[in-house]
């Protein structure tokens, strides 16, 4: 269907002067006769109208009858699996029954929790989804985000409707505001409410304890529990056990376990508690119902809270679980120096998972641990623990530390006083890494391949080379010329290229390996050449012969690590294992893609290994700056045989205490350096503690002093901080912090400037401003919508120990709101889209059986077309202007040229005679005669005109006339001769001959006329 529209319609007013055009034309074209005048006026009017339409910017508008419906499925935790399945069933039926195939309507599905994702893009197919396959963060409901994604996902050439299937309990975003935006865009909204299940619900709402207690000070722990009945149910008490558990850095203890009868409504249970040992304590209250049927959600049956009892400094030492005991000597000596040291390995089950778990410790020692043993979140926690919570962080060296440990380009590198990348190529031999990517059939394969390539690239040093081969129509390097130096700004460009990588189906490994081999051959000086290959094992194996890729790569010293993932059928792939075995690489079989980044970090570390500097028989570190960490240390330090190269940060805060005399001519020789990072302190010690490189230090008398001073310097200040009382309270997604301050005499301390830092569960800092509201009373508030621990550090001022506390949001808001938000859903559906009708709340009585309820819901057609139709317009003013121009010539033609139509009746008569078989009428002959005479008359006229234009010689040149006559006579005679010779000469040729002679004669006369004056001049002279 097509329509016409105007962008500048006010120009159409010019059409009112059309009668004037007619009036003027009528009088001025009177001489043309009636018919020609009418035609001329008509054409002129048309030209005028077309010009006006062009000025009005006429648009040719195409109207589409198609409709696209996007179903938005709430997948948050408040929606049960059963309800999710019912949603899928409803959507499948609605698409297959209601979609108008003739109209080519489209249907698509979006799922949402905290974020939204497209499950099925809008397609004109009867798509049936077996289940929801996209995973989203289910801990929140972001209706507005899903609506926004839907708006962006609609095709432009159809009408648009969304059908939201949700309980309406949004806890992120504003759906009403977004609904208005959708309505403005002409998008209709239908809503299918999800009814909450009828079961009753018990929840541990919170645990209240003072956040900062003194040793031996009794305090009350309050556990707040609630018991609510389901829709239409009678409130009833619920029986169960309430457990209170106390957790410290190294043990867990149940301090209360009692049978309780929880009456309907909110109830508070109080327990008296007293702490003797200084530590950071976590209290957890847990309710276990006797009958699980009385409780819909188990997730909200526990809550936690923190408190802190100050004491002497605590040290956490994290050691590589694969090399346990390497630092035992140092730990023993530190303990001997009265430091409380806790040693933990780096196995996932031993490592901290929450920032709160680091709070008992005042400094953390990373003892030769590689990067890949920590998750990104754990690295971020270590940094935040120092930057925002004031803890110390010390890295102790070894072959798995710093750049050699893959810590390059991590947030931890930023926190340290040295950079882990070496800029001096002479010092650090380069490494080269090639990655071959073939994991496209892995779920979210593209994403994971980008992640792992990014991790590997980040772990490489500036001097290292990196290349990536993938299949994109053919095997190809992702960047050129293949193996490219990572430094010099290339890393960022490579990372940008990674975003565009879409690896396809690689037929074999041989070609890619040959490409890699050719590039490796260009780097004969590379100390380490390494290749990582990820695949599902589908490509054809490489050639294992001596001249094949594997053989030649092995000769060049290239090791190939293979990662088998998404292999078809049984896990693993023999060809991939063969490749690794034959080249001395590692072979990994991966079932969970989440483990991939660690593998790539570890493998990239093999390339970064040249960052270790080793020399025998050893060299003596030298004191560069007498920092307090090395006070009282003998200047003659025992020799060491190695350390990890680092480069000091160009920052005046960096203090380098010890350096190595080797390598010379570089500043990559730091042994001990320190600086202040945020609220905490960090230090690097680039050699080890006596296991491999500093073996001669173990018997050195300064050993204990040096290490204990380094550790003590880095520790967070401890001790009594004065009479500060901090309390926190969580209400409606906000944490309220109240600080009460008394001086020595128990008088209120006023006008203090309390600094504060909050770190959320995502390790991001949160703004918290604490203001005085009453004498000695200071209050601040921050948003706490995410589940997890929020840790606060309040700085009372210079010279005072910071106060640490924490708040725990134990479970998602999804487990708090259980009733369907009818009001919100009704408001969304009632929004009237532009040029369309308001949506509908598609509902069915709750007491119906599931099948009947589904049938009832399907009675409302979600593909009904009562919405603004999509249009696409095309400007046609230029076509109109062109048409007007052409017609203007026709206008001139009509006025200037008389066209006779007398031949028409004759032609008609002749056709009639031919058709009817009549003989020619006599008047036809007469007509022909008339035509002939007319032709003769016209010829005479033309001849007269020609004669008038013809050149006539001047009468005063008789000699010329004679010569012309002679010439003409010659010409005639010649013509006669020619005619005798060639009787077939055409009249046209004759005419040409005649004309040529005339021209010749004319030229001759002109030439003689020119000669005459010159002769006269000569005579005169």
């Amino acid at each position, binding site marked *: 269907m097509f329509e016409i529209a105007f962008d500048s319609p006010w120009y159409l007013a010019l059409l009112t002067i059309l009668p004037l055009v007619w009036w003027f034309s009528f009088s001025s074209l009177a001489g043309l006769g009636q018919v020609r005048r009418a035609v001329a006026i008509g054409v002129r009017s048309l030209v005028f109208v077309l010009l006006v339409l062009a000025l009005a910017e006429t648009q040719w508008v195409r109207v589409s009858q198609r409709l696209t419906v996007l179903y938005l499925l709430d997948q948050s935790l408040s929606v049960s699996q059963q309800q999710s399945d019912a949603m899928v069933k409803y959507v499948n039926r609605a698409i297959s029954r209601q979609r108008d195939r003739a109209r080519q309507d489209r249907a698509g599905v979006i799922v949402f929790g905290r974020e939204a994702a497209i499950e099925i893009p809008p397609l004109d*197919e009867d*798509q049936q989804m077996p289940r929801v396959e996209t995973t989203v963060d289910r801990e929140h409901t972001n209706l507005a985000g899903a609506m926004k994604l839907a708006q962006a996902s609609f095709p432009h050439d159809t009408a648009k409707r969304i059908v939201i299937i949700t309980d309406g309990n949004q806890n992120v975003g504003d759906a009403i505001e977004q609904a208005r935006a959708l309505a403005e865009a002409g998008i209709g909204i239908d809503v299918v409410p999800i009814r909450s299940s009828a079961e009753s619900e018990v929840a541990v709402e919170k645990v209240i304890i003072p956040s900062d207690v003194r040793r031996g000070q009794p305090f009350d722990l309050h556990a707040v529990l609630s018991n609510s009945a389901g829709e239409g149910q009678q409130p009833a008490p619920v029986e169960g056990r309430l457990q209170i558990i106390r957790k410290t850095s190294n043990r867990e203890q149940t301090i209360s376990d009692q049978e309780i009868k929880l009456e309907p409504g909110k109830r508070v249970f109080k327990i008296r508690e007293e702490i003797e040992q200084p530590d950071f304590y976590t209290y957890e209250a847990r309710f276990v119902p006797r009958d699980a049927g009385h409780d819909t959600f188990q997730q909200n049956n526990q809550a936690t809270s923190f408190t802190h009892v100050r004491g002497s400094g605590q040290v956490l030492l994290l050691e590589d679980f694969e090399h346990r005991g390497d630092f035992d000597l140092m730990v023993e000596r530190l303990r001997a120096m009265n430091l409380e040291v806790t040693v933990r390995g780096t196995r996932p089950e031993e490592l901290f998972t929450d920032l709160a778990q680091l709070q008992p410790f005042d400094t953390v020692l990373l003892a030769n641990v590689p990067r890949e043993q920590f998750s990104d979140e754990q690295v971020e926690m270590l940094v935040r623990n120092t930057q925002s919570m004031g803890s110390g962080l010390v890295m102790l060296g070894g072959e798995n530390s710093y750049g050699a440990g893959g810590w390059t380009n991590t947030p931890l590198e930023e926190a340290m006083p040295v950079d882990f990348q070496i800029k001096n190529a002479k010092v650090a031999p380069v490494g080269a890494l090639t990655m071959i990517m073939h994991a496209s059939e892995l779920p979210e394969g593209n994403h994971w391949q980008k992640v792992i390539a990014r991790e590997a690239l980040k772990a490489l040093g500036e001097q290292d080379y990196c290349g990536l081969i993938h299949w994109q129509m*053919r095997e190809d390097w992702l960047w050129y010329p293949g193996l490219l130096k990572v430094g010099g700004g290339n890393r960022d460009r490579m990372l940008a290229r990674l975003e565009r990588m879409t690896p*396809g189906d690689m*037929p074999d490994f041989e070609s890619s390996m040959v490409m890699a081999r050719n590039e490796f051959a260009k780097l004969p000086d590379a100390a380490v050449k390494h290749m990582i290959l990820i695949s599902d094992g*589908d490509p054809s194996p490489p*050639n294992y012969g001596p001249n094949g890729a594997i053989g030649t790569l092995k000769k060049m010293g290239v090791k190939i690590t293979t990662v088998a993932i998404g292999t*078809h*059928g049984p896990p693993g792939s023999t*060809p991939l294992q063969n490749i690794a075995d034959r080249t001395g690489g590692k072979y990994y079989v991966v079932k969970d893609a989440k483990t991939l980044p660690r593998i790539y970090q570890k493998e990239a570390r093999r390339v970064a290994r040249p960052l270790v500097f080793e020399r025998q028989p050893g060299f003596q570190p030298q004191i560069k700056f007498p920092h307090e960490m090395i006070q009282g240390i003998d200047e003659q330090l025992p020799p060491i045989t190695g350390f990890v190269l680092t480069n000091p940060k160009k920052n005046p805060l960096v203090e380098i205490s010890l350096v190595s005399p080797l390598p010379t001519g570089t500043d990559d020789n730091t042994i001990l350096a320190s600086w202040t990072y945020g609220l905490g302190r960090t230090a690097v010690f680039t050699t080890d503690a006596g296991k491999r490189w500093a073996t001669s230090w173990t018997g050195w008398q300064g050993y204990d002093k040096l290490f204990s001073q380094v550790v003590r310097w880095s520790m967070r200040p401890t001790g009594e901080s004065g009479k500060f009382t901090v309390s926190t309270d969580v209400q409606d997604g906000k944490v309220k912090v109240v600080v009460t301050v008394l001086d020595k005499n128990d008088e209120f301390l006023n006008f203090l400037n309390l600094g504060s830092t909050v770190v959320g569960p995502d390790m991001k800092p949160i703004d918290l401003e604490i203001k005085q509201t009453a004498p000695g009373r200071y209050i601040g508030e921050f948003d706490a919508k995410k589940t997890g621990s929020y840790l606060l550090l309040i700085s009372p001022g210079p010279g005072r120990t910071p106060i640490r506390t924490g708040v725990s949001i134990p479970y998602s808001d999804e487990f708090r709101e259980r009733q369907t938000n009818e009001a919100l859903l009704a408001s969304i559906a009632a929004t009237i889209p532009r040029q369309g009708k308001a949506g509908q709340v598609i509902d069915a009585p709750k007491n119906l059986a599931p099948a009947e309820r589904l049938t009832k819901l399907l009675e409302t057609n979600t593909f009904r077309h009562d919405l603004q139709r999509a249009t696409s317009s095309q400007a046609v003013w230029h076509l109109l202007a062109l048409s007007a121009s052409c017609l203007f010539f026709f206008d001139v033609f009509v006025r200037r040229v008389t066209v006779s139509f007398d031949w028409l009746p004759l032609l008609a008569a002749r056709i009639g005679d031919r058709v009817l078989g009549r003989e020619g009428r006599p008047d036809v002959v007469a007509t022909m005669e008339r035509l002939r005479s007319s032709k003769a008359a016209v010829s005479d006229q033309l001849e007269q005109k020609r004669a008038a234009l013809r050149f006539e010689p001047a009468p005063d040149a008789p000699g010329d006339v004679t010569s012309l006559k002679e010439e003409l006579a010659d010409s005639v005679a010649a013509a006669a001769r020619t005619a005798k010779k060639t009787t077939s000469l055409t009249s046209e040729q004759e005419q040409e001959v005649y004309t040529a002679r005339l021209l010749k004669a004319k030229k001759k006369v002109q030439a003689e006329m020119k000669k005459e004056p010159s002769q006269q001049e000569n005579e005169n002279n």
Partner: protein
Amino acid sequence: MHRELIHRRSFLALLSAAPSLLCLAGCDEKSFSTGRLVSVWGRRGISDGRLQKPRAMAIDAHDLVYIVDMTARIQVFTTDGQFVRGWQTPVHDNGRPTGISIDRRGNVMVADTHYFRLLIYSPDGKLLETLGGTQGHGPGEFGFLTDAIEDSQGNLYISEYGEFDRIQKFSPDRKFLLEWGGHGSEPGRFARPQSMAIDNRDQLWVADACNHRLQTFNTEGRLLKLWGAQGSRPGQLSYPYGIALDGQGQVYVSEYGNHRVQKFTPEGRTLGCWGTDGRAPGELYNPWALARDSRGLIYVLDTNNHRVQCIQM
């Protein structure tokens, strides 16, 4: 004046040489380009009649086109792309089939690659027979199956790749007869024998994809011919995945790596190419298979464009 003359001469020489240079430069693309696009059909999708990365195709004696795609559906189309019927393999979690062919009785043989077996269906999708199912390199065991074909005596040849790229021959009553090949680039060995065709003299043509060549064997596995080299020039091959014979001795090959179809004489002399990389009609994106109908039209499975292109070549 003299200088001007030289310039003019040089210019004229260049002018006269340019067409020849252009001719040489375009030798790859233009002078060997042959074939005419007849039709394009198929659309990406998972509903009936749509294709999701189709990887194998065969045409039966009734000119019905059988296509298996990444949803493990075998769909039957008319040669103008009308959906006729379809079915799915019993299980496909481990991976989807990559080969399909028609036997002498008109049954459909599906190389269920990642289940190490051959599925034989009636034309309407009834599973008649399953051959293999055990991974291994013993007789009757398989690696990744790629294709199956019957000779005039009813013997069955099944190709596979992986660790043991080989062809196994079975008697009409499915008894193991012999095997040949092995992984490698030496004559008679294979690197991913992706598809096979058999001519009217019972010579077996094998698209040795990752060796970028074609090999011809007799029914006893003796190597008769071998030709092809890796490259993108006419006459060269890059991952020949599909092969079809026209009964007149000419060989049609779909090249996964060169995104084209190439026509050869039986001796390996190229008779022209059709197609280039791209997404427009007449362009191909990693074509896996091709097949020929009774009228001599060639159907190319344009895998990553999720469609079929019909050409006359």
